[in-house]
């Protein structure tokens, strides 16, 4: 029933996309038609911080079908955030480069943004209407200089085989979560939920309650400025989510100490621990999930006993979980590119439901479009009602405010502060 509902919802979302977004004069679903002579010889360099970008390399191959004489290369840049601005104006500048939402508003990246091509320029004919509007970032002047390629979210990986084996349903609200965890504990699972105890966005406390906090911020938009101003009085906005976190930590659903001991980093260790096969629910961000496919074969336990797993929103709320869609990575075009026309042509090719979907599917990340990846890893997110689905842009929070919240949950989750202390300390909570 739920599967059917999911399918219907997915279809509904697709239909809505077609009718409202891509359908209203949109050409994103239309086959790509090269603008230039297919024999054009050119080289493009895409620079980024990913050490490995196979999904983009797959797109290069697809692009070669239209421009067989093209040569595209992905270059990993060391100390990316510090050098990208310089790289864009040096003697060998990249043609396309990755950006992210955190760079917006950061003066350190002003030069970088100055080097960006305005992708919303109609003359470029880049139709990005298939991308969720809530994920489009603009400059103060309203120009679009970066287009999201991947998005991420915060939630949990669920070992479906365990739930099937124990005859349990994946919990959809906090009450169910506690109940399920009790049953799992009695079935022998010491810590039904696990995650990495880190300060970062991948940290398990962040994955559990940040979406809830963001939801509360959206519903208290009048407090956003105070929050961004790190006004201690705005700390009260954090209270519901901090209390839920405190409740969660004390519920027995998660053994924080065990997590700290067994999961030593915020990426590979999470995945490899999950693949041990004895963790029913692993709190993780989408960026972590994207690394699962490659590591399946690296895990002896998983190779010996593979199991089915999916990504769900963490059921922190009384009414259910929250799906917050955050930009993971964007692409911008260097306006100083020696092949600016072909760089824009590649972007024109890439920004479509098909190619973005392909990339996300390969990368195991959430595409910025309204259609979830064909990989059903994320299909459960389609079950979350619209009123609890939103993008982080809608919160209006600036990075400092977010970091204060992370500091708060890190302190409360680790019993370093009480909820009251954390609320009162907003703006001055020690960060990592």
């Amino acid at each position, binding site marked *: 029933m739920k599967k059917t509902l999911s399918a219907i919802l997915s279809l509904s979302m697709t239909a809505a996309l077609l009718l409202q977004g891509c359908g209203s004069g949109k050409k994103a679903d239309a086959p790509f038609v090269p603008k230039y002579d297919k024999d054009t010889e050119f080289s493009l360099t895409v620079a980024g911080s990913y050490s490995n970008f*196979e999904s983009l390399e797959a797109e290069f*191959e697809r692009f070669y079908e239209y421009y067989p004489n093209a040569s595209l290369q992905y270059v990993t*840049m060391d100390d990316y955030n510090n*050098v990208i*601005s*310089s790289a864009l104006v040096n003697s060998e500048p990249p043609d396309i480069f990755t950006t992210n939402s955190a760079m917006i508003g950061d003066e350190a990246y002003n030069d970088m943004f100055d080097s960006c091509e305005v992708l919303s320029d109609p003359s470029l004919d880049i139709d990005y209407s298939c991308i969720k509007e809530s994920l489009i970032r603009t400059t103060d002047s309203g120009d679009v200089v970066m287009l999201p390629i991947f998005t991420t979210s915060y939630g949990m990986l669920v070992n479906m085989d365990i739930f099937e084996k124990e005859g349990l349903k994946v919990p959809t609200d906090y009450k169910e979560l506690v109940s399920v965890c009790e049953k799992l504990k009695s079935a022998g699972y010491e810590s039904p939920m696990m995650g990495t105890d880190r300060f970062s966005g991948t940290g398990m406390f962040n994955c559990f309650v940040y979406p809830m906090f963001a939801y509360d911020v959206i519903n208290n938009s009048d407090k956003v400025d105070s929050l961004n101003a790190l006004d201690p009085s705005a700390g009260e906005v954090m209270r519901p989510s901090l209390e839920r976190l405190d409740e969660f930590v004390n519920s027995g659903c998660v053994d924080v100490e065990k997590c700290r001991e067994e999961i030593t980093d915020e990426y590979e260790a999470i995945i490899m621990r999950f693949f041990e096969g004895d963790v029913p629910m692993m709190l993780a961000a989408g960026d972590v999930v994207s690394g699962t496919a490659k590591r399946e074969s690296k895990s002896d336990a998983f190779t010996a006993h593979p199991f089915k797993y999916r990504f769900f929103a963490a059921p922190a709320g009384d009414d259910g979980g929250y799906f917050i869609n955050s930009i993971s990575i964007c692409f911008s075009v260097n306006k100083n590119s020696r092949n600016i026309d072909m760089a824009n042509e590649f972007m024109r090719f890439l920004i479509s439901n098909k190619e973005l979907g392909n990339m996300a599917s390969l990368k195991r990340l959430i595409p910025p479009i309204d259609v979830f990846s064909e990989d059903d890893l994320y299909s459960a997110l389609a079950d979350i009602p619209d009123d609890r689905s939103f993008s982080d842009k809608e919160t209006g929070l600036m990075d400092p405010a977010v970091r204060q919240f992370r500091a708060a949950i890190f302190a409360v989750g680790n019993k370093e502060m009480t909820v009251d202390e954390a609320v009162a300390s907003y703006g001055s909570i020690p960060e990592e």
Partner: protein
Amino acid sequence: MKRSLIITINLLIMGFILFIITSYANTKADESYENGIIGFEKMTMTTNRIIANYLEDEQHLCDIWANYINLSAKDGVPMTAEDAVSFIRKAKTTQEIDGHLIFPDSPDRSGVSTAAKVSDPDDYTVSYKNIDIFDNIESVSSSGDTVNLTRAYTNPMNGVQSIAFYDHVSVLDPGSGQLEDGLLMRVVPLSSLEQKLVFLKGEYENVEISIVDREGNYVVHGKSFKNSNFFEYYKSYNEASAEEYELATDEIAGGTGTMTIKNSKGDDCILSYMPLETMTTWVLLAYIPLTDLVASRSIDWLLLGIATLGFLLLLIFNSIVMMTYNRKLSEAAQQANQANEAKSDFLSAMSHDIRTPMNAILGLNEMVLRDSRDDNIRMYSESIRTAGNTLLGIINDILDFSRIEAGKMEIINADYSFVSLLNDLVNMVQKKAEEKGLVFTLDIDRDIPGTLNGDEMRIKQIILNILSNAVKYTDSGSITLSVHAHDLRDKPDSVMLRISVADTGIGIKPEDLDKLFVAFERIDEKTNRNIEGTGLGMTIVQRFLGMMGSHLEVESEYGRGSVFSFDLEQKVVNRDPIGDYEEAFRQLSSQRKNYHEKFTAPDAGVLVVDDNPVNLTVFVNLLRKTRLKIDTAESGDECIAHFRDRHYDVIFLDHMMPDKDGIETLKEMKSITDTPNKETPVICLTANAISGMRKMYTDAGFDDYLTKPIDPEQLEMMLLQYLPKDKVIPASGEEDTEDNALPSFLSDLKELDVDAGLAYCGDAEDYLMALEMYMESADKKSEEIERYRAEGDIKNTTVMVHALKSASRSIGALELGEFAARLEKAGDGGDKETLDRELGELISRYRQLARALEPLRGLTL
């Protein structure tokens, strides 16, 4: 050979040649491929050398900087970091190369750069805090390599992908006044290294070069190499088990060689790998699509394609030519068939045209023989019969051969009496043999089954042919016919006959044996020119035997004689043995009668139709003694008139008649219902003796057919078959006894063979008349011979001797006849001496015989 077989063979040969070409091309392509691989490996080595030189040069320049700085320190005037960088700014000659002097032990791995930050022209501070390129400095330094090089990384000052050569320097810390260790880096844009490899594009346009460390991490990243780690890339696109993967990575990381891998598109590529000469911790990878190395193979395939096309064109051309020739051959064959049919038609016509008058000749001659009492006339008539039969034999041989050649000769098996077969043979041959003074002996197995199943006519023809030949080619001595039988183990209902004819004739030379069975080939033609024959006899024999599953065997000694033999399997109908045939035959011979009608049928009516009145006369006379009521008709219409009016017991109807032929006449007769002859058998008279006649006549509605010239005995036998039994009165034996009554003293005369004389003359009456005539003319003839001899007239002497020969033979004085024949031959050859020497004896014996016959005088009156 069938066309499909020829095409198949052609295709096979073509396939074989193509296979050879393909194998050769593949071998060459493999060689080319191997050469390509070797060439590519050499290119990799060259690249390695170039890179090594380049790296050594760059390292050397870096070392010069470091040495200068370190020498200053050693000389007691150490440079500060700023001094050192200032020195490098002056020392370096290339704008794009930077010098970084950093302090790895400082918190931010910071230092000073020769160039300012792009983002801040006043900031020369460089930090490697977030760039992990120094993790393996210690291991690199301790490896003993001459080059100290970082992996490719992003120059933090300008964001350019670069590599850095480094060396350790000691500089003065202005704050503490102490020397501190720094790392001097010569930072070179990666593109500089790549430019050194531009030369490769000439020979290998799509070659890409990468440098990886032993873990597979890229130092220099080729554009087609995906992933951040070459081994990961290899694993992603190449299906390999864990062991194979480990083997491949170990090989690449530690060895030198070449392997085939798949790129991200699934295409086969050649990867050549070897450790960098100057930095053994790094591995040089050269990669090229396989198709770039084996491009030359396509040329071979092109040639192969052209060769294939050429062969196909040749095959098509040859097929067309062959088809044209075949069409011509087919036309020629058709013409030949038509010619053959024309020949058959000709033979048919010849058969008819010769046999029809022969019917009249031999039939009338038979009358003469029967009726004449004049010795000379009977002698002449006998010659006519011999010559006629010889001619008929020749015609029959030709017709038989023609039937065999046309494939129309059939073996028709039927039950037959073996004794009867022997009787016929002996009757036909013995007389001829004895005429030549030959002894004809029989060696017949008494256990031969009495009734067999086979083609009696053909068997008889075979044996007769052999026996006739034996008689022909034997001048003196004997001819022996042997027949023996033995049972067949696996065929209880059959018997194997071994039939052989041995003669004491002239024999056959070994070299002529092969010619024996060649049609129209006569052996020793020169010697045997006086012997009549077509050269077909043995050929026909062999063919008949072949059709019966046997073959003729010949053993011969030239001048001594021959033995012709064959085995013949026959089905047994009645196993009762024939007994002592030789004795039975001797008795039969002694009781041999001359012609006597087999029956009389005074109440039977026969109608005979022939457009030739002579033939009608012959026919009527042949049956005169049977007292049949014979009506004749000379045309179809006349026949039909008789057919309507009067009942006949048998009708003989000639086939070839003018206006309305026999078949048309028969058809009309069959359509007549108002006739007393509805059940009367109609027998076709025909001179056509070629193949297929029986079927043709029976299909046309005849009950049987009889070939012309008419064999009197066959005619009577046929009448006995078709006449109503109640109208047939068999011939009585008394008359025979009467006819056979000869004076007993004749049997005592040594010079006389009574049986032979009787056989020749027909009956006792005629024989006695012949003897009397011989006796009475002896004196006169003797005198005439002597007179001619006295006059030296050899010619007339010979003619007279010839007459004596014939007369003697006709009365059974065979030895005297043979003596005369020898002298006749001498006379023909002008051998006067022999005549003078032996003629007296001949005449003496002649007169002596005549005197011995004196008791006959007046006996026949």
